[in-house]
C-alpha cells in the first residue's frame, strides 16, 4: 500500500544533530513533518526553515517526551499539519555516562525514561492512527552500544538495547496491518552529543571516520518509505563497520 496523502511524520528530538537531519530527509521525501524539541526552539525553527526553504512542510512541536503526555503531541501535530501521524521516529535521547558503580539512580532513570520509556509511550499512541490507516512507519533510533559493549554507558546501552527489543516485538504485533517497526543503530556520528568522545573512538572504526547525521537520516528515510514496506523488525546499522 502506498503512503496516504497528507501523512505526518513526528520526529522527536529534532532540533539538531541526527533528529534535525532526519526531519529534513523525511520532508524531502514528501512527509509533512512535526519537528519536536524540548528546549532548543532556535534549532527547531532553523530545521523548519530549512525544510520550508527546500519546498517541504513542517512545524515545530514543543514537548518533553520524557515528561509530557503523548496525546498532546499527537493532537498538536495532526491539527497543525492537517493529517494523521503515520510515521514516528523515536530519536530523542540523552546521555549521562559513568561506570556502572558510579551511576546515580537519577541518571539511570532519566536515560531510561527519555531513551526507552518515552519511545514506548509514543509508539503505543502512534498505533492508533496507524491501525486506522492500515499504514505506519515506526523507526527507533537505537545505537551500536545497544548490542555492543561500551564501558561507561550502562544506562544508555540498556536503554538502546531495550529499544531494539521493543522494535522487534512491536513489529511482530502489527506487521499484518501494514505498519513496519524498525531501528537504526548509529555508530559514532558527529553531533553535539558525541563531540567529547570522537578523537579516541575514530581509531576503532573500520571506516576511520565518524558518520554524519545525514547518513543516519538516509537510513531512516528508506525505512520510512514505501520501498521498505517488507522490512520490519530489523535494525539497520549505520556505523562505518563497527558492529560487523
Amino acid at each position, binding site marked *: 500500500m502506498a503512503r496516504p496523502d497528507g501523512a505526518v511524520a513526528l520526529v522527536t528530538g529534532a532540533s539538531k544533530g541526527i533528529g534535525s537531519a532526519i526531519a529534513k530527509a523525511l520532508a524531502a521525501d514528501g512527509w509533512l513533518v512535526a519537528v519536536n524539541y524540548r528546549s532548543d526552539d532556535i534549532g527547531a525553527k532553523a530545521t523548519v526553515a530549512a525544510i520550508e526553504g527546500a519546498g517541504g512542510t513542517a512545524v515545530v512541536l514543543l514537548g518533553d517526551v520524557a515528561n509530557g503526555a503523548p496525546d498532546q503531541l499527537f493532537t498538536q501535530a495532526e491539527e497543525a499539519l492537517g493529517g494523521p501521524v503515520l510515521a514516528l521516529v523515536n530519536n530523542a535521547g540523552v546521555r549521562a555516562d559513568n561506570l556502572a558503580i558510579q551511576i546515580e539512580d537519577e541518571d539511570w532513570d532519566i536515560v531510561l525514561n527519555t531513551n526507552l520509556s518515552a519511545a514506548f509511550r509514543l509508539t503505543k499512541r502512534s498505533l492508533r492512527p496507524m*491501525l486506522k490507516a492500515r499504514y505506519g512507519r515506526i523507526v527507533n533510533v537505537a545505537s551500536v552500544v545497544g548490542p555492543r559493549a561500551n564501558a561507561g554507558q550502562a544506562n544508555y546501552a540498556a536503554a538502546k538495547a531495550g529499544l531494539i527489543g521493543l522494535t522487534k516485538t512491536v513489529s511482530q504485533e502489527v506487521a499484518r496491518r501494514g505498519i513496519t517497526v524498525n531501528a537504526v543503530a548509529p555508530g559514532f556520528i558527529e553531533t553535539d552529543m558525541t563531540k567529547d568522545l570522537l578523537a579516541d573512538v575514530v581509531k576503532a572504526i573500520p571506516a576511520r571516520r565518524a558518520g554524519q547525521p545525514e547518513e543516519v537520516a538516509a537510513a531512516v528515510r528508506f525505512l520510512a518509505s514505501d520501498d521498505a514496506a517488507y522490512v520490519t523488525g530489523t535494525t539497520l546499522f549505520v556505523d562505518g563497520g563497527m558492529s560487523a
Partner: protein
Amino acid sequence: MATTVTPEAVEKVVFDALPQFGADPSEISREATFEDLDVDSLDLAELSQIIEDEFGVQLKGDDVGKIKTVGDAVELVVSRAG
C-alpha cells in the same frame, strides 16, 4: 460527541466492525466466540479503539483479555460506561 451507550447501539457498532477483521458476517452473533470468528488480540485491541472513539468508553487490556464471545464484549462496554 460520543454516542450514548445502550446494548443495542454497542451491538451494532461491534457487529459492523467485526467483518473488517475477517469475521464472516453470517457467523456473527452474541453467542459467537472470537476464536470461532478468527478474531485475535490485535483485532480486539483495534475494536477497543473503535469503541472508545464511538462511545468514549475506555477498555483496558486486562478486561479485553477475559472476553470470549461477542456478547461478552457488548456487556463489557455497557458495564464500563457507568
